[in-house]
């Protein structure tokens, strides 16, 4: 060591002069940093280190607080702090100075300041807010190097809530003439995309521009964003496949500048990135895949230089080729590559080859067959990592015939393994295999297989110990308890388990882990009565011995106690106390039980004490015992309704009477955070959270509950997830599934492997088998033969004719032994998770809309419609010959939307006023309108508005007619006079059939939204019993009129109107409903309607004075900020933008002062929302406040749209 120190010291002067050369800050050998570094290199013990760093921290602390410290010194201090933190000693007092250095230092100091910030702080650190101003300033700097630094730090760490503050500046940089700035801007946007995807939705087109940038660096940076977005939703980007292929072609063809080469390979990391993107795009899509075949072929062809980096590219090529739609020729080449890897003497390549093989065997099991000898060699490789990877590969080619050998190999590995994580992973895998195949070996006798299963599990329990996933033992017990269809099989298995455990306890119970002891206790308690020649007393005695051992944990004791309780009846205790006489043996057992109960009835462990007291009682009362712990299994009839559907009635009752819907704890917490005033994270919680919370609240239907509980109950799934691979189960035949043993479901594909059966009979026990397979032998030929033998037992069943069964052939339906109601949970959870994961990343405008739509589960409306009127439909088709029946183009669209709608549960429309009410009011309104409206409502703005109601969010908001406009369209004549002069939308058609046309219009009354539904009878006869039902969960129906008519005369028009209020803010709500009527002599018909209402319909201006505004502003807490597009940047941007908003969204502009404007509005009869708008950096910075959590977000959405549409 002293030698080293000496060298260090002599090296120092040379170093220092070099430092001068590279222009670094001068480090004199007496500098504090120099001292620290020397100190660190001289450390000999942890204790020394602690002393040194503590001293250093104290010195730093003193120095930073001194006012005389220059920025240059500060830079050095930061590096010293970085050292301290690197060694694990927190230097939190210097964080603030790092920010200060970034703020005030000159270039290099500034860079070190930013560097220290990025190393010290994490994403949620509150000090990060202080960085925002500095970043803002630097982004606007004329010094490019400062802009560069700011962009670098932004793409490393930036507070999510503050993204809007700098987003416009970053966006602007996308057009910068310098490539490095453009590249860094793209990187910053990538970061934003990762932490707040909805903030950058509007710049997707700019990503495309970056992809096509003439500079390869900018293009390469954009690939990261694309990879991420394509991962989330490949479908949206398939059109870009051609571009990626072209780019890859150019890169592979060496079209990039030569300094992108790495060891003469052109831009290898860019190639790899592109190959990953192609794999995602080509997956499950033949036509897209076909675009890629050429370039993949070329990539393989070009990668001929033997260098690691070309192998890395080849590996990626192979993965891509096996992921996309297959092409024979390419598969062959890829297989050859894998072969070269696996056979390579270079260990790293071998590893990569095994990894590739593991990835590929699911598609092509034959490939494993080709390399079987290599695989066998790897299995005995001296490198544990290679071994591990080989086991992973074997795990994926397991079938019924080779499972015993493979499991034995895995257990061998496990016994020698000391790494916790590997043990957990492998134990779970072995358990999975053991449960899958225990009865499937070709051997017809059950005993060895039972034995194999029990012994394998025993090894797992012993090796896995306390590390393994807790669901492994419980799955095992469930398998035992539920049994199979054959009672005899079950009995054999259980008897074997009892025998094996009794002998385990008799020999050496001290080494058994707690979990295993619990399993043993349960099995003995439940099944030891099956073994005739086993005395219950013996079992009790063995168990009691466990209780006496100090190393047995208290929860294990309680398992043991329970077992003793079950056994006490068998021991004749009950008989004894019932006075029916008892032999010596039973008396002994009874005494034992009594003694145990006695002994533990005063235990300090309350659980144990209670159990002891129960035992005392039970052992004295056989009848009670028989009732509480019935012998034999009640499992057969046990049904677990994991969805708790029996509570559905109760839940809906409670909900109906006003109870709050259940929210899971994490959501409650989320909401609590949200409610907190002065939250530091308004943005973090803004849009997505409020949406998701409302959607979750609305989704609290029992169906969702059942999905989640189904999931949590699905323990095999959990274990599966805990393992590393996600593809493990695919392609492996399943005999034991999540739901238990699936016996006798399929033909076993044993026939083709007759010759192999000879070489691979499953011998009864493992020790024998393994010794037979791998005897240590000096004779090479014998060794070879052994390997051959091992190979044939490992790869049995992988021959080409039954390899198909490995390819994920659909499983036969599992017999539901344990009748959980979680069928389809896999698909359900998968689809729901994929929905929720891609929804935030949909194209900009779809975000809100789609998540709104997702709220409703599948549609009961359709059901009712179908069940109500099947005849009606056929009839409609039949009478279509009339030809004059106008079918509006909306019909389809409406049906589509209705399809996805929420189920009706509010029955507001049912409490309809008597038809008389409508009758009284309507006649005066309808004079003179009749001729105009027949035979169907003239479509005023036909296609546009039709589509808007059908397709939703993409189309403009309703065009408001100014009240003073005097050329009202004719159909407004049908509006009730008191509504006629209010602002209202055009009448837009909703639905129609041959006799009835429906259209609607929205009238903005000051206190409510009035939805006017116009029904016109187009046929020659009156329609009877016309009734309208409208549902919308999100809205409150304040009043309604005319929704039930006794008759609608021929060629006449009636209106019905709903007065609606929105209580909780939503960006959009769907109103659905149906209109039913009866033809005079015909059947009844139902027309489905749906219409989308926007938040804007429920907003009204809030008239305030500036003072009132100020007071209100201060009292509000829900706070959202966002930068919006500014209109008319040349003229008076603020005024023109505000006036657009005012017109479109009915806002009240309170005041405009200079470049700032204050605006107010309110939700109908409800909460106010205040806006503070400021023109800043070419954008409109809007700050919204409201007492209602979701309102600012929803309003913001509409503000954005209103400005974009202009």
């Amino acid at each position: 060591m002293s030698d080293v120190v000496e060298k260090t010291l002599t090296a120092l002067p040379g170093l220092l002069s070099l430092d001068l050369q590279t222009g670094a800050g001068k480090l004199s050998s007496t500098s504090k940093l120099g001292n620290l570094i020397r100190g660190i290199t001289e450390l000999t013990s942890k204790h020394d280190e602690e002393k040194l760093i503590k001293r250093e921290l104290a010195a730093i602390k003193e120095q930073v607080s001194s006012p005389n410290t220059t920025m240059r010194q500060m830079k050095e201090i930061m590096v010293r702090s970085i050292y301290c933190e690197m060694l694990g000693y927190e230097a939190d007092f210097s964080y603030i100075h790092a920010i200060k250095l970034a703020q005030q230092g000159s270039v290099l100091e500034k860079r070190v300041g930013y560097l220290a910030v990025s190393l010290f702080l994490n994403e949620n650190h509150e000090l990060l807010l202080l960085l925002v101003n500095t970043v803002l300033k630097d982004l606007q700097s004329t010094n490019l190097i400062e802009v560069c630094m700011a962009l670098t730090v932004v793409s490393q760490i930036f507070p999510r809530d503050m993204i809007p503050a700098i987003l416009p500046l970053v966006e602007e940089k996308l057009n910068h003439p310098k490539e490095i700035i453009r590249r860094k801007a793209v990187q910053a946007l990538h970061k934003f995309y990762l932490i707040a995807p909805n903030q950058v939705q509007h710049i997707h087109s700019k990503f495309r521009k970056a992809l096509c940038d003439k500079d390869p660096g900018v293009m390469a940076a954009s690939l990261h964003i694309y990879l991420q977005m394509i991962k989330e939703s490949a479908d949206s980007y398939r059109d870009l496949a051609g571009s990626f292929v072209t780019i890859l072609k150019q890169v592979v063809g060496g079209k990039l500048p030569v300094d992108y080469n790495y060891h003469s390979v052109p831009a290898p990391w860019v190639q790899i990135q592109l190959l990953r993107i192609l794999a995602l795009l080509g997956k499950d899509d033949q036509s897209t895949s076909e675009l890629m075949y050429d370039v993949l072929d070329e990539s393989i062809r070009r990668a001929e230089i033997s260098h690691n980096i070309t192998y890395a590219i080849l590996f990626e090529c192979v993965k891509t080729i096996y992921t996309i739609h297959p092409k024979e020729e390419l598969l062959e080449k890829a297989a050859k590559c894998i072969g070269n890897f696996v056979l390579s003497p270079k260990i790293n390549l071998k590893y990569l080859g095994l990894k590739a093989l593991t990835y590929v065997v699911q598609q092509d099991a034959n490939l494993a067959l080709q390399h079987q000898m290599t695989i066998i060699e790897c299995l005995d490789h001296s490198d544990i990592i290679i071994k591990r990877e080989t086991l992973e590969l074997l795990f994926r080619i397991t079938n019924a015939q080779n499972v015993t050998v493979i499991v034995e190999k895995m257990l061998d590995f496990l016994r020698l393994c000391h790494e916790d994580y590997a043990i957990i992973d492998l134990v779970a895998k072995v358990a999975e295999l053991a449960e899958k195949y225990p009865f499937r070996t070709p051997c017809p006798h059950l005993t060895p297989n039972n034995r194999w299963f029990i012994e394998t599990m025993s090894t797992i329990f012993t090796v896995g110990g306390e590390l393994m996933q807790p669901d492994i033992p419980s799955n095992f017990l469930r398998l035992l308890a539920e049994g199979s269809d054959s009672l005899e099989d079950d009995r054999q298995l259980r008897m074997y388990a009892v025998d094996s455990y009794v002998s385990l306890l008799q020999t050496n119970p001290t080494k058994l882990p707690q979990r295993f002891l619990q399993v043993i206790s349960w099995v003995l308690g439940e099944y030891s009565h099956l073994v005739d020649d086993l005395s219950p007393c013996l079992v009790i005695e063995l168990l009691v011995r466990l209780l006496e051992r100090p190393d047995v944990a208290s929860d294990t004791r309680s398992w043991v106690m329970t077992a003793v309780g079950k056994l006490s009846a068998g021991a004749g205790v009950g008989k004894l106390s019932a006075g029916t006489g008892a032999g010596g043996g039973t008396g002994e057992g009874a005494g034992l039980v009594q003694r145990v109960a006695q002994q533990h009835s005063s235990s300090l462990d309350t659980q144990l004490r209670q159990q002891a007291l129960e035992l005392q009682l039970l052992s004295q009362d056989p009848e009670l015992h028989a009732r509480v712990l019935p012998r034999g299994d009640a499992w057969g009839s046990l049904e677990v309704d994991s969805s708790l559907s029996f509570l559905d009635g109760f839940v809906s009752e409670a909900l109906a009477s006003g109870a709050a819907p259940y929210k899971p704890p994490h959501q409650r917490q989320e909401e609590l955070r949200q409610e907190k005033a002065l939250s530091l994270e308004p943005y973090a919680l803004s849009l997505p959270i409020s949406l998701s919370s409302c959607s979750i609240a609305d989704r609290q239907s029992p169906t969702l509950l059942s999905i989640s509980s189904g999931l949590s109950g699905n323990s095999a799934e959990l274990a599966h997830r805990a393992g590393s691979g996600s593809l493990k189960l695919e392609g492996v035949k399943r005999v034991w599934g999540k739901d238990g043993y699936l016996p006798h479901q399929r033909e076993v594909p044993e026939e083709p492997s007759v010759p192999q059966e000879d070489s691979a009979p499953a011998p009864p026990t493992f020790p024998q088998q393994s010794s037979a397979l791998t005897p240590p032998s000096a004779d090479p030929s014998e060794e070879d033969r052994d390997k051959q033998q091992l190979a044939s037992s490992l790869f049995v069943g992988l021959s080409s004719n039954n390899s198909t069964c490995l390819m994920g052939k659909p499983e036969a339906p599992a017999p539901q032994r344990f009748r959980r109601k979680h069928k389809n949970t896999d698909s359900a959870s998968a689809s729901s998770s994929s929905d929720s994961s891609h929804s935030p990343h949909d194209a900009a405008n779809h975000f809100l809309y789609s998540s709104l739509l997702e709220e409703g589960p599948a549609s009961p409306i359709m059901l009712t419609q179908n069940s109500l009127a099947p005849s009606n439909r056929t009839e409609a088709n039949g009478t279509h010959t009339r030809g004059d029946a106008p079918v509006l183009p909306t019909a389809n669209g409406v049906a589509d939307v209705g399809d996805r709608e929420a189920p009706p549960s509010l029955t507001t429309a049912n409490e309809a006023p008597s038809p008389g009410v409508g009758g009284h009011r309507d006649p005066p309104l309808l004079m003179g309108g009749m001729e105009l409206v027949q035979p169907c409502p003239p479509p005023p703005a036909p296609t546009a508005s039709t589509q808007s109601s059908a397709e939703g969010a993409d189309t403009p908001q309703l065009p408001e007619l100014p009240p003073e406009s005097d050329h009202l369209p004719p159909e407004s004549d049908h509006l009730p006079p008191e509504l006629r002069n209010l602002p209202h939308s055009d009448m837009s058609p909703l639905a129609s059939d041959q006799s009835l046309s429906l259209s609607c219009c929205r009238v903005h009354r000051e206190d409510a939204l009035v939805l006017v539904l116009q029904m016109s009878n187009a046929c020659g006869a009156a329609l009877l019993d016309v009734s309208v039902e409208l549902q919308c969960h999100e809205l409150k129906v304040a009043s309604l009129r005319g929704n039930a008519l006794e008759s609608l005369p021929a060629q006449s028009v009636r209106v019905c109107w709903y007065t609606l209020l929105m209580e909780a803010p939503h960006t959009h709500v769907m109103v659905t409903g149906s209109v039913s009527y009866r033809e005079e002599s015909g059947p009844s018909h139902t027309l489905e309607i749906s219409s989308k209402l926007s938040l804007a319909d429920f907003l009204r201006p809030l008239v305030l004075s500036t003072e009132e505004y100020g007071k209100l502003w201060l009292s509000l807490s829900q706070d959202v900020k966002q930068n919006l597009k500014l209109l008319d940047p040349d003229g008076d941007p603020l005024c023109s933008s505000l006036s657009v908003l005012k017109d479109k969204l009915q806002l009240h502009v309170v005041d405009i002062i200079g470049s700032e404007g204050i605006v107010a509005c309110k939700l109908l009869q409800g909460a106010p929302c205040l806006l503070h708008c400021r023109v800043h950096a070419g954008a409109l910075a809007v700050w919204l406040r409201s007492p209602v959590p979701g309102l600012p977000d929803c309003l913001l959405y509409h503000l954005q749209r209103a400005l974009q549409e202009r």
Partner: protein
Amino acid sequence: MIKFFLMVNKQGQTRLSKYYENVDISKRAALEADVVKGCLSRRKDECSFVEYKDYKLVYRQYAALYIVVGITDTENELSIYELVHNFIEVLDKYFSRVVIYPSPIQSELDIMFNLDKVHIILDEMILNGHVVETNKNRILAPLLVLDKMVES
């Protein structure tokens, strides 16, 4: 994805650490010790990839220095192995002397005395766990400008 990037010497002392996901500072030392133990104990003829918890470690030795990169399972081990070499080549180019086969003490001290610059170089190459730039000229460009500005 890259989870962390470490430079350690043969004695297992950390000379540079950069984490691409939040790891509590109190846990870093233990993690580094574990990681280093996993890599340093391996023989030359064993492969350069190690499994560690749910990560993979890719390590490469340069004289007395080890570089260890923690990656997720989806990452391409060999490409990271070469990325490490690229990084060393960049350092070599910047410090204009042979780092790859230097006297052990010197290269380690190079890094120690220029910790900030090594970090700046690394930041240009790896960002949020993604490989963002591998072109040596471009990696060094910002740093060289900084140096020039300091000189003048």
